């Protein structure tokens, strides 16, 4: 039983990354109807941002945690203004191809500069060691990642559900034309929301740098699972993507424990089941898809 509990905890930690990434993907999809295939590339850039700040400027991981997401959010906004924006009115496939292409370019540029092998990055001194959680001890850093991602997700949720900005964003997401008709300038919010989603991906990347291999393919390997997470949670559903992130994390961890050979497929089996039984996703609303 201890074993199982520990696996659940493992899953929550890896789910933290899924949750942050899926959350960003989900708000972008909700606001623009764009499936951002470059999301994994921005996660990778987040990790590389932390590496470059430390390697070239001697800036600590803590600073990177602040600086990198903001910088990449700005890059994201520029990306939205100059490219994504132009294709929004067209068939969504155009933006799918655009972001997919940009992901490949970003990945190759990083590979040209830094090669295919991973860059070294050590965890911050303050978070090394492990903490006793009662039933088992666990690496301090990973406990921090879990708490941090939960806090970040709750904050995003509070902003979206309790503030005026959040209300506008939600209204624009669900009834763009109606919101527009009521005098809300929907377009004004598109760019910041896109940047915000990218910032979340970068944040996940910075969090990953100390515990995962930092190389050009780290985002590409992850993005497929993230898409599955978003589909399971419900397209455009903020709560759904976060919940599905943690759920998929736990599913993989428990799967690794009991049936390692099958664990990679479990998430896609779950996705297929969800699509069959609840096409709108576990937490998505039917109207979101049928509207």
């Amino acid at each position, binding site marked *: 039983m201890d074993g199982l509990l520990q696996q659940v905890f493992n899953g929550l930690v890896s789910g933290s990354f899924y949750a942050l990434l899926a959350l960003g993907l989900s708000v972008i999809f909700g606001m623009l109807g764009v499936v951002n295939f470059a999301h994994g590339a921005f996660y990778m850039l987040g990790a590389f941002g932390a590496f470059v700040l430390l390697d070239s400027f001697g800036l600590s991981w803590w600073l990177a945690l602040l600086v990198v997401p903001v910088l990449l959010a700005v890059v994201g906004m520029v990306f939205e203004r100059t490219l994504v924006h132009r294709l929004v009115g067209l068939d969504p496939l155009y933006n799918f191809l655009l972001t997919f292409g940009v992901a490949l370019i970003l990945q190759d540029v990083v590979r040209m500069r830094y090669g295919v092998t991973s860059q070294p990055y050590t965890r911050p001194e303050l978070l090394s060691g492990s903490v006793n959680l009662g039933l088992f001890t666990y690496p301090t850093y990973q406990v921090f990642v879990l708490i941090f991602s939960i806090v970040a997700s709750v904050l995003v949720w509070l902003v979206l559900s309790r503030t005026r900005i959040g209300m506008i964003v939600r209204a624009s997401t669900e009834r763009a034309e109606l919101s527009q008709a009521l005098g809300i300038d929907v377009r004004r919010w598109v760019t910041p929301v896109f940047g915000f989603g990218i910032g979340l991906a970068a944040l996940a990347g910075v969090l990953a740098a100390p515990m995962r291999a930092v190389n050009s393919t780290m985002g590409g390997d992850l993005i497929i699972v993230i898409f*599955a997470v978003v589909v399971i949670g419900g*397209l455009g559903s903020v709560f759904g993507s976060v919940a599905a992130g943690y759920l998929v994390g736990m599913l993989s961890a428990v799967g690794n424990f009991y049936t390692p050979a099958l664990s990679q497929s479990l998430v896609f089996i779950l996705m297929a089941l969800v699509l069959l039984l609840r096409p709108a996703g576990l937490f998505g609303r039917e109207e979101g898809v049928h509207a």
Partner: protein
Amino acid sequence: MAPKIKAAGALGAAVTLGVTLAGCGAAGGPQSSGGAITDDKITLGVITDLSGVYSELAGPNAVEAVEMAVEDFQDEHGDDAVTDNIEVISADHQNKPEIANTAAREMYDRDGADAIFDVPTSSAALAVATVAEQNQKLYFNNGAATTELTGEQCNAYTYHYAYDTYMLAHGTGKTVTEQGGDSWYIIYPDYAFGQDMTESFTTAIEGAGGSIVETDPTPFPNDNFSTFMTKAPNLSPKPQVMGTMQAGGDLVNVVKQYNEFGLRDKGVDLAVGLMFDTDIASIGVESLAGTLFTTAWFWNMDDQSREWADRFKERTGDRPTFDHAANYSAAMQYLEAVQRAATDNAADANAELEGHPFDDFFARNAEFRAEDHRLVHDSYLVKVKEPGQVQEDFDFTEMVETIPAAEAFRPAEDSGCEMG
């Protein structure tokens, strides 16, 4: 919002597309035969990973190593050389067997290649072996690990030059077990290389009196090994050693997370199946100090090796991996064999190579074993240096002991190879 419906469809397509992304390609071609020096030219082909995960441990620098061998051969023999017209060509196989197959056919048939070198990735390596046999042209594999090349899938035109899973397992698995780490938990990436490594390690560990507590396949690629890290110390009986057969980025993830979870303090040591200097640079010496592994060669093991490594660095700016050194050595041995035979006819070169003993900076006490075409040579059990001992970049490895050529590789009688 109509676009959303379509976007949902696109998303589904994206997931499927991403999951099933794969290459394709195939070709056929006629056979060819040799003369004295066909076309008065010797062509050496290098099929390697020029841009993917193995492009730093093999890749462009492997091509460079073969070119270096050609220049040195020409300097050495001057006007007495069997021909002064030697060309090196290369192709990127992207680690895919079907692309390697096509590239090998084109090289042998169209470009008149007399021998092909390197070919990392076991499945691609085996594909090229088949083409070499069909074309009756020579092939020296340096980059791949599978013992199948000199096992049931061996043939008279294929040589396995640098290393294999038996050598790695025999060095690391046997020695660590004999030193007291006699119960093992093995995690391996779930594809041919990982399965082959696990089998070889299991044989070596049990042969040395050790036991396997459990083996677990892991997803590939994978960035989260926490399940296995928390499982290891709770197995019963508790294993003394965790053996990781992961490579590249996955290996980096394993070692980072092994350290995070403090497994060494919990009494579970780490043993690594296959590691290159490039991996150690990624992980950081401080995280790996003291870790034992087995290698075919390392650049600062003695003066002779350092001298070559310095020349290599002058050319490329990089320190060589053992794959680079092996490519130089194999190209040189092939050219010398052609020189002795005075023809690039594969059968005559083969007659010069089989049973030929030699020593060079890469291969010590070496011999091209005639029975299965395994190049047997000394291999080395080494460990990662302490951070304080590192003098320069890539100065990561310290000799523990030499495994004599006669013991380092699988005995020919166990190979299952029957040359046609």
